[in-house]
């Protein structure tokens, strides 16, 4: 077998036992790896509550992981979300995926619960459950300091242990499996850390062919101003988007009550570059290196964090952003949800949060102290508790990221249709609505967006399953990755054949959410976007979304996706895609 190892490690923590699973080739053919394969194995238990012993926590690599394919240093972590109740997955970088492959595994399926807090240490096929009671309450860097340098790890911080519904799993020291609370699922199983070391090597079918495909991909990325241009994310990190969102009047401000923050030009990526003199870093096998680490080893914030910890909460201080980012990282919680929950709190309490208060509230959340006991439940539950639901800017209870949907209508649709709740990454329409790739689309119309979003969702499902990086697809296409896939696995494929698999993977996710009762009424946006305008300037006017147009677009999307009018899977479509489903 080339690309895959053909083996999955199943760990039962209740029994402290493990077994090996060897999937049939057809499962690999249909679900590829990463997010696709993890989804396939999550479905068997998806109706279980997130904290049940039977619930699985899945760590899955893809056939490209640990090969010289460009940006293949990624993997997927998946389970059911404590925050939203939908499935929850995160494509995450760092070295863990590579080591899992080197150790001989395509993925890990973890079930059960340990009595005591443990670490799981894997060296090739030797698996050890280590008592980690002494690490209870430790921050991410405290745990890392106990290990030899450059260990490949997945760790939870105090936030997860204290029941924060949006707690993360942190890979190595600075790659975050974020959003819906994967950290809490890991905490519930009583795992403080997982450490993996492998001594093998993923075999590649045809290294020369891979070299040819790499050359094409490098040529395309070099031609991309967004990736490798002087102002692009290689030089400035994802924060390069900050000025753009400001200039397009779509930076969520004051809990989405406005879309322009007057202080933004003083808080952009250029300011971080001057102040922190960052160096480039990133995932193994990546030539773009979008992560930025400051001269004093500060982990600099990503775009979403930069935006939400300034405009959304009214903070004008750069240092506070870096500190807030650091607290979230050390405590292990999602920066988007943390900032958005503070914004919701600020709106409900009708008070501005001072910069000192931002930091102390974050500690309160992570440590479940005082008001933190309520805020750790996320903005939806907090607002509900206070009887002010309209202050929660969430989709399916998950806080929205830093792209105001009134400034990009494809984004509006894709927030609603995302299978992992309010999320920008499922279809990433910013690519064409703002960044003009592969071509520009009109950002202020729903026309034509239904099919575009559907195709993009399929595409990103493939990307997360191979696995590779979404950013690369501002430049590259599946044409080049079909060649990479063949070179690695020896299985001939085409761009369209891969996209078909993406369609299956995405639809399978719809069936999982449907099994848990999610229907069309959940695929909706907060009322504010339909009622209130954003901030308009001469260059661009940000009007409220037209509800009628949005609903029509959603209806079109269901037709194109092969869902019924309630947004539910159909027998016809599942049969066509070979997915298990009962009407």
């Amino acid at each position, binding site marked *: 077998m080339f690309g895959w190892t053909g083996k999955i490690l199943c760990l039962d923590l209740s029994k402290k036992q493990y077994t090996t699973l060897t999937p049939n080739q057809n499962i690999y053919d249909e679900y590829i790896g990463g997010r696709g394969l993890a989804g396939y194995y999550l479905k068997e238990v998806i109706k279980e509550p997130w904290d049940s012993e039977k619930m699985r926590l899945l760590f899955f690599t893809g056939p490209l992981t640990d090969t010289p394919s460009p940006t293949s240093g990624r993997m997927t972590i998946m389970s059911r979300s404590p925050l939203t109740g939908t499935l929850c997955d995160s494509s995450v970088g760092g070295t863990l995926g590579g080591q899992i492959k080197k150790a001989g595994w395509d993925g890990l399926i973890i079930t059960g619960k340990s009595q005591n807090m443990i670490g799981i240490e894997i060296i090739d096929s030797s698996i050890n459950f280590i008592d980690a009671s002494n690490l209870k309450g430790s921050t991410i860097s405290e745990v890392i300091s106990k290990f030899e340098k450059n260990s490949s790890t997945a760790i939870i911080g105090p936030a997860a242990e204290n029941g924060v519904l949006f707690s993360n799993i942190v890979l190595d020291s600075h790659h975050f499996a974020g959003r819906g609370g994967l950290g809490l699922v890991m905490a519930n199983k009583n795992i403080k850390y997982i450490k993996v070391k492998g001594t093998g090597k993923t075999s590649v079918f045809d290294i020369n062919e891979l070299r040819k495909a790499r050359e*094409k991909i*490098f*040529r*395309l*990325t*070099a*031609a*991309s*101003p*967004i990736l*490798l*241009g*002087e*102002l*692009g994310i290689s030089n*400035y990190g994802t*924060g*390069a*988007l*900050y*000025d*753009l969102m*400001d*200039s397009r009047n779509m930076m969520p401000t004051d809990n989405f009550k406005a879309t322009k923050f007057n202080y933004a*030009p003083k808080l*952009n*990526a*250029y300011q971080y570059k001057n102040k922190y003199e960052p160096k480039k870093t990133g995932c193994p096998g990546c030539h773009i290196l979008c992560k930025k680490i400051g001269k004093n080893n500060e982990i600099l914030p990503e775009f979403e964090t930069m935006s939400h910890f300034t405009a959304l909460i009214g903070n004008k201080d750069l240092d506070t952003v870096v500190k807030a980012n650091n607290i979230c990282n050390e405590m292990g919680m999602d920066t988007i949800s943390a900032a958005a929950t503070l914004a919701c709190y600020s709106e409900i309490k009708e008070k501005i949060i001072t910069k000192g208060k931002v930091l102390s509230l974050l500690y309160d959340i992570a440590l479940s102290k005082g008001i933190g006991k309520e805020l750790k439940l996320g903005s939806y539950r907090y607002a509900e508790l206070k009887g002010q639901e309209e202050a929660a800017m969430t989709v399916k209870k998950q806080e929205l990221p830093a792209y105001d949907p009134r400034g990009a209508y494809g984004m509006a649709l894709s927030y609603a249709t995302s299978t992992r709740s309010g999320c920008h990454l499922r279809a990433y329409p910013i690519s*064409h609505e*703002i*960044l*003009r*790739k*592969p*071509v*520009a*689309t009109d950002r202020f119309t729903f*026309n*034509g967006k*239904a*099919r*575009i979003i559907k*195709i993009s969702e*399929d595409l990103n499902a493939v990307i997360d399953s191979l696995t590779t990086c979404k950013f690369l697809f501002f430049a590259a296409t599946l*044409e080049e990755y*079909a060649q990479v896939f063949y070179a690695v696995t020896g299985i001939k494929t*085409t*761009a*369209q*054949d891969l*996209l*078909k698999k993406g*369609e299956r993977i995405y639809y399978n996710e719809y069936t999982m959410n449907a099994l848990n009762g999610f229907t069309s009424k959940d695929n909706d946006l907060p009322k504010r976007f339909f009622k209130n305008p954003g901030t308009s300037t001469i260059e661009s006017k940000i009007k409220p979304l037209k509800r009628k147009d949005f609903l029509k677009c959603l209806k*079109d999307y269901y*037709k*194109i996706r092969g869902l019924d009018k309630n947004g539910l899977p159909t027998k016809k479509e599942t049969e066509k895609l070979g997915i298990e489903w009962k009407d």
Partner: protein
Amino acid sequence: MERLIKKYSKKLVEHGLCNEGSPLIGGLEVELIWNKKDPSRKILEKVINSLNITSILFAEPAEPYFSILNYLSFKANELTIHPKDCETRTFLHDIPVSLKFEANSIIKILKNRKSVIIPKHGIITIGTISPEQTFIVYSSVCFALFVKFFDDYYYSITSNNINEQQKTIFNQTIDYYKNFISKIKKVSSTNNISLKKEDEVIKSIIKTGKLTVDCLMVDSFFGNISYKLKKSIYISQTGSSLDELIGCIDKCPINQSSCAAITASSEFSAHKDIYLNTKNKAILHGHPKFCVIMSLLCRKNNCKFKGQCHIKCPEKRYAKDIPIVSGEVGTGIFGLYRTLPPAIKNKRGVIVYGHGLFIADKYSLENTFNNLIDIETMCLNLYLEKVKENNAI
């Protein structure tokens, strides 16, 4: 969708790529819509329904492209054409051929490529997002085939291996091109005064961009244009059409204090370095065909960089006063932003191998436009001289 379909079927005709009435474009939202009735729709419907895409274009190209297409596709080995120009190399990789105008054969190819050519029928292209993609790819294919024909022709001449069909197409096309270029009107002189105000700059960029496209000196949406005013560069956005630049010009502070211009042209760095190292204020970049063809004509045997001319050519090559340099799009290790700025010092312009022409001027974009026409005319004549020289031997 309907608007875009109309827009691009019209544009194909305006750009001289198709004859009136020829483009058939289909767009798929919930339902599939077409711009016209056509017997080919049955086959194309099958194609679009078998692929995860939003748009499809089929058209017989106008002359001389159609003759060139038929000639090159009938002699293609392995049913794939491998042009050497930069657009093909970067975005298309190669141009596949289907000998049959039949759905399954077309689907098989389009599962992994953006275009397919069918001898005696025309070109089919597809788009995942918008009909604009079908137009861009169509235009790139026509450009690539044109350039390849003349590159091949020169090779056939020098190796004494020319056939009648080639000669006929050559004569027809050269007549057509001579006639076409002689009709282009230059802009009246601007007294060599540089612009002082932002709105003048933006107006001038929009106007010159449109001129460049209208006289067909750039194919599809490739090409870029900029002007330096005070401490900022005003530059066309990535993937913008030079004839539709309203709202598509980015203002980039030269000290990079804002990333808002992350959407600026992929050649922003090259433009910036030219401005930093010379007294120029205006830059225009297009893909005039004979500039590109001339840059490919190097038949040096035993060169150790054979096959790598586009990145490693060590020679100092010229078309008269215009240097020809290697370099790829953008900022990679072989990026033209390394080779172009030093070469353009004290020159009107520079040709990048297999790619196009960059022209810089101290005063105005009008001057760059006039130089574009001059240099392309010069390259056409140079090419004809070279052909003549070798024909005589």
